């Protein structure tokens, strides 16, 4: 494939492997995420999606293979170093800072990638830019009036929105969204779908999601992970009619 024929990949994964004892969780995965796209990663339970996200974000070390992000090899970089280069993940199980307010959670997300945090004298409230950006994010995720709330005053859907909002807050180049709609009611997941769609304005998105209908509405391209292997990658229409994908995961009702 010549470079001119394909848009530049922001994230290039080659031959990525992770074994846990005798189990191969990630089995020679190749994956390209192109700048500006929403790329969905789907697959049945136990396919290795969560392990792959953890490898991409740096929480799980890979046994083999390379991860190239924005032209640089990040395979051995620590998680925080990847985040500072613009590769930030969200979590399937919500992780928030319980003793901070809603606004402060987002402000911390902005602070994490802006300059050094080894400053122990000046109060952070003097840094208007941090809080300005944090308020913008809260409005964008529908929590504009909840900035002063404590985390435990939020509903499940609001916490999920905050989880994703914190990931978006620093305007990363690539966001890894790990099942953002997990456990949401219909109304909440519609709002989350709109939020994911809107986030493409600032970031490239790798979306791990169980809701196949939402995936086919949102994604520019879809990769299917089964048993730690990518069995198909392509446009949604092509992937949903791929016989291997139908057999391994989707079943007949999703094919059109």
């Amino acid at each position, binding site marked *: 494939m010549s470079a001119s024929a394909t848009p530049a990949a922001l994230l290039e994964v080659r031959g990525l492997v992770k074994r846990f004892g005798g189990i191969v969780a990630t089995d020679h995965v190749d994956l390209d995420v192109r700048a500006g796209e929403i790329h969905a990663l789907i697959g049945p339970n136990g396919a290795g999606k969560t392990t792959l996200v953890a490898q991409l*974000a740096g*929480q799980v070390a890979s046994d083999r293979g390379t991860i190239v992000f924005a032209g640089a090899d990040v395979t051995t970089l*620590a*998680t*925080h170093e990847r*985040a*500072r280069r613009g590769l*930030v*993940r969200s*979590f399937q199980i919500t*992780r*928030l*800072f*319980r*003793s*901070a307010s809603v606004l*402060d959670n987002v402000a*911390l*997300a902005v*602070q*994490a*990638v802006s300059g*050094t*945090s*080894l*400053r*122990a*004298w*000046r*109060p*952070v*409230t003097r*840094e208007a830019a941090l809080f300005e950006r944090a308020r913008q994010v809260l409005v964008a995720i529908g929590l504009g009036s909840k900035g002063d709330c404590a985390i435990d005053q939020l509903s499940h859907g609001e916490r999920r929105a905050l989880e994703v909002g*914190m990931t978006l807050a*620093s305007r990363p180049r690539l966001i890894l969204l790990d099942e953002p709609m997990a456990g949401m009611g219909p109304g909440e997941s519609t709002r989350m779908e709109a939020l994911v769609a809107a986030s493409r304005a600032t970031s490239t998105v790798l979306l791990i999601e169980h809701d196949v209908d939402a995936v086919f509405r949102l994604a520019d391209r879809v990769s299917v992970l089964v048993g730690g292997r990518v069995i198909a990658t392509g446009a949604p229409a092509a992937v949903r009619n791929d016989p291997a994908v139908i057999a391994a995961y989707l079943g007949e009702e999703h094919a059109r």
Partner: protein
Amino acid sequence: MKPNVVTLCAAAVAIALPFVLRALGLDFYLSLASRIVIYAIAATSLNLVLGYGGMVSFGHAAFVGLGAYVTAIMLSEGVTSGVLHLAATVAVTALAALVIGAISLRTRGVYFIMITLAFAQMLYYLANSVKGYGGDEGLTVRARSLFSFAGYVLDLKKPLAIYFVAVGVLALALVALARFAPSRFGRAVLALRDDDVRAEALGFATYRYKLVVFVVAGALGGVAGALSANLQGYVSPNLLHWTQSGTLMVMVILGGVATVWGGVLGAAVLLLLQEVLGAYTEHHEFWTGWVLLAVVLFARQGLAGLLARMRATRLS
């Protein structure tokens, strides 16, 4: 940040205390006051790691003891310059905290508690085995740290001198802690205490930040030890024993985890309880145990939290 009423009152009490004690003919109690202030410094340094940083270090007395030994050994070797004592104490205890922290912070939870305890006990046995400096009998020193500037000499042998130097160190530590909490670094540390996986995923260098906190706290603990050596004129391995680490933890929990005044209140109340109850019974620890239980059960964030809530109720 304007100094509030509490801060001003505390400062006034700390400054007036020696003169009030002298006027009342209770000079003897000045050494107790100095001991409280020195323990307050040590407890405040532990509160930085344990309370603000969420790192349950069970070996903090090792740094206090190490600082005490550094100063006592220098004094016994004829080095009297207080500036040198402080510099050496900070250097040695910071280096020890750097090594111990760099290894311990690779673990978490119960393993972190155990490994910090193990390092502290190693230093405890090391202190026991250095026969040249007293071994298990400890080391008595006659001289004290001397600070000389512009022709004046401040000799920490004088009760007033050691008291005011300790108060000064404590005041600096408290101001720094009050500035730290709402700063960039303070908030990042709060974030990694709440959820270090999330903090790391957002871009905070969590391991490095924890190590910085651990080293700063270790060095401050060392300074408390150096002052303690000056106050007592005696150091012994017991300073490094794990029960000392436990006492410091009790002070922090009693006074208020992750509060500026927590270490001070905890040290003052615990030592005063020991002093008062000690006059009536040999089993004062039995009764202080009840007080600790009551605070843990009924006062979230310890005495500092209790006082803050009482003030809030009165003002509203």
